[in-house]
């Protein structure tokens, strides 16, 4: 702490005094050299990072026979064909997978955002007996790894007769504890004056939540919605075990069957990989900032 205040003060002085200009020249040069090196190194790595995706894209745009010859043939083939995409669209499985993924992701997102924001509102604004116990239980829940619960979850859904329904994928993913805490924290930071005014006007809690609090929560709702949507869309382990009907398979489960069933049709395989990723690429392009904020703000990791 001492060094921090020291340096800022000195900075304040030197910024006002042009005398400090001279020793700066040398660091300016080294800074420029450093920044150029940084740009070069980083760009090399970024290109390296893009290569696998671009290679998959390129493979998906060649014929299966060219793709079977291997990487040199794929890279030197200048022709572009959409044959694999046409094959996949005509076979039709991909449409079912899209539909399943879209329905499960959308419904889970709506339920999670609604229930987590309501719960977050209760924990932030209302004092009630048992609140501390709930709080403690929820904090413990952050640590519970859902993936490890896949076997008992499967059995419960089996007992409830929910296997091979969308609900089997939706229900277990609704209680996202992190979302609850993100909402609570956000509400904690909102000024209470508007709510008090509404309450004096006779509004009940539900109306305050719906008409005062939620309209102020756009950014956090958007961030939580996107993070939830992407998480559910990409979940493999849960739908893998609770959905065995090919017509209900989500994108990840469907893609997991592709490797075996397409054999050596490498262009088709890569085309399905690209199609499975496409909606998320589009989502990223539109909501880049929200996604990054959501991920960085919550520390949600698969």
């Amino acid at each position, binding site marked *: 702490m001492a060094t921090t205040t020291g340096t800022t003060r000195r900075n304040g002085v030197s910024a006002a005094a042009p005398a400090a200009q001279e020793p700066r020249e040398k660091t300016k040069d080294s800074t420029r050299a450093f920044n150029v090196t940084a740009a070069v190194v980083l760009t090399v790595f970024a290109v390296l990072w893009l290569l696998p995706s671009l290679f998959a894209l390129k493979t998906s745009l060649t014929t299966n026979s060219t793709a079977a010859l291997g990487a040199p043939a794929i890279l030197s083939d200048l022709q572009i064909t959409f044959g694999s995409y046409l094959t996949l669209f005509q076979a039709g499985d991909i449409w079912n997978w899209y539909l399943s993924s879209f329905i499960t992701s959308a419904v889970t997102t709506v339920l999670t955002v609604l229930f987590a924001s309501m719960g977050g509102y209760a924990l932030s604004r209302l004092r009630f007996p048992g609140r501390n116990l709930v709080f403690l239980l929820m904090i413990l829940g952050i640590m519970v790894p859902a993936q490890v619960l896949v076997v008992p979850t499967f*059995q419960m859904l089996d007992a409830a007769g929910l296997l091979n329904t969308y609900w089997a994928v939706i229900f277990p993913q609704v209680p996202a504890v992190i979302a609850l805490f993100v909402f609570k924290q956000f509400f904690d930071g909102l000024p209470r004056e508007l709510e008090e005014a509404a309450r004096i006007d006779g509004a009940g809690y539900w109306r305050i939540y719906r008409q005062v609090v939620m309209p102020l929560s756009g950014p956090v709702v958007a961030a939580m919605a996107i993070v939830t949507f992407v998480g559910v869309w990409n979940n493999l382990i849960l739908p893998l075990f609770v959905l065995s009907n090919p017509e209900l398979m989500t994108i990840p489960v469907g893609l997991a069957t592709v490797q075996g069933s397409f054999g050596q049709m490498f262009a088709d395989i890569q085309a399905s990989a690209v199609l499975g990723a496409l909606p998320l690429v589009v989502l990223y392009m539109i909501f880049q900032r929200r996604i990054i904020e959501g991920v960085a703000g919550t520390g949600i990791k698969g």
Partner: protein
Amino acid sequence: MTTLTTPPPVPPSAATRPDGSPDTGTRVKTRDARAGWLFLAPFAFFYALFLIVPTLYMLITSFFNTSLVRPGLGSFAGFANYAEMFGRADFWSAMWHTLQFTLYTTPPLVVLAFVFAVLANRLKRGQWFYRLAFFLPFVLPSATIGLIWVFIFTPGTGLWPTVQGWLGMEPTAVLADPSWAMVGIAIATVWWTIGFNFVLYLAGLQDIPRELYEAAAVDGASPWQQIRSITLPLLSRTTTLVVLLQIIASLKIFDQVYLMTQGGPGISTQVALTQIAAIGFTDNRIGAASAFSVLLFIVIIAIALIRQLFERNQDRSA
């Protein structure tokens, strides 16, 4: 319902109480209580049903010979399932492979993400490009990552052995070789998830005041010195978070193994969760799978607790 009762007139003095609660009348208190539980009810319902109940069920069945093909809990087994796990060679090898995966992925994921973020943060232009390159893969489904990397690692004709040939190296059949398969999974994972750590570090860098760097530059500190004595120490909190999240995520690895090697060749990449799934869903032995799950659970909770303690400590010292 409570919303129908008109709220008691609030005396102005109470409305402006400093702690923000407008009234302490018993009527408001019960209204608060009922509303609180009503607002929490939907979330709590799903939370109890899909987090608490499965956790308890896992604990209970770990002490029984529960089977997937017979109804009910089955006969009481005591600690037999646990004893069996500790005696099974494949339990220890799955645990070892999980640790191996953690050891292979954590250092590059932390170090590279730090370097990329620090470098990207210095540059004024092209931020979107670096974010796209490093972060976009993280948003993609693991199944896409699996398909791409299995293809890249195709023995003989894949991109990986081809590039190895160009560089004059002996081409490796990465995923088909027991001593390389986990390395292949680790490479795909580093490529896939580095964006997560990258954005966490970028967020951490935003919190470092620019004046610190300017002041250091005035004092003649080179960029390298600035990184070493300003960035590195001030990001230590982020680094702790990144490392612990990384370890927890690594212990839960399932997707990449399931998609890329199915635990093979042999059992050389069989990890905890794929082994649990095999015991539960292939051998139908829920009790044994639960005992394994509980053991993994304990390890993960222990690390998560370390994280909580650490954060509390840092909050206090901050």
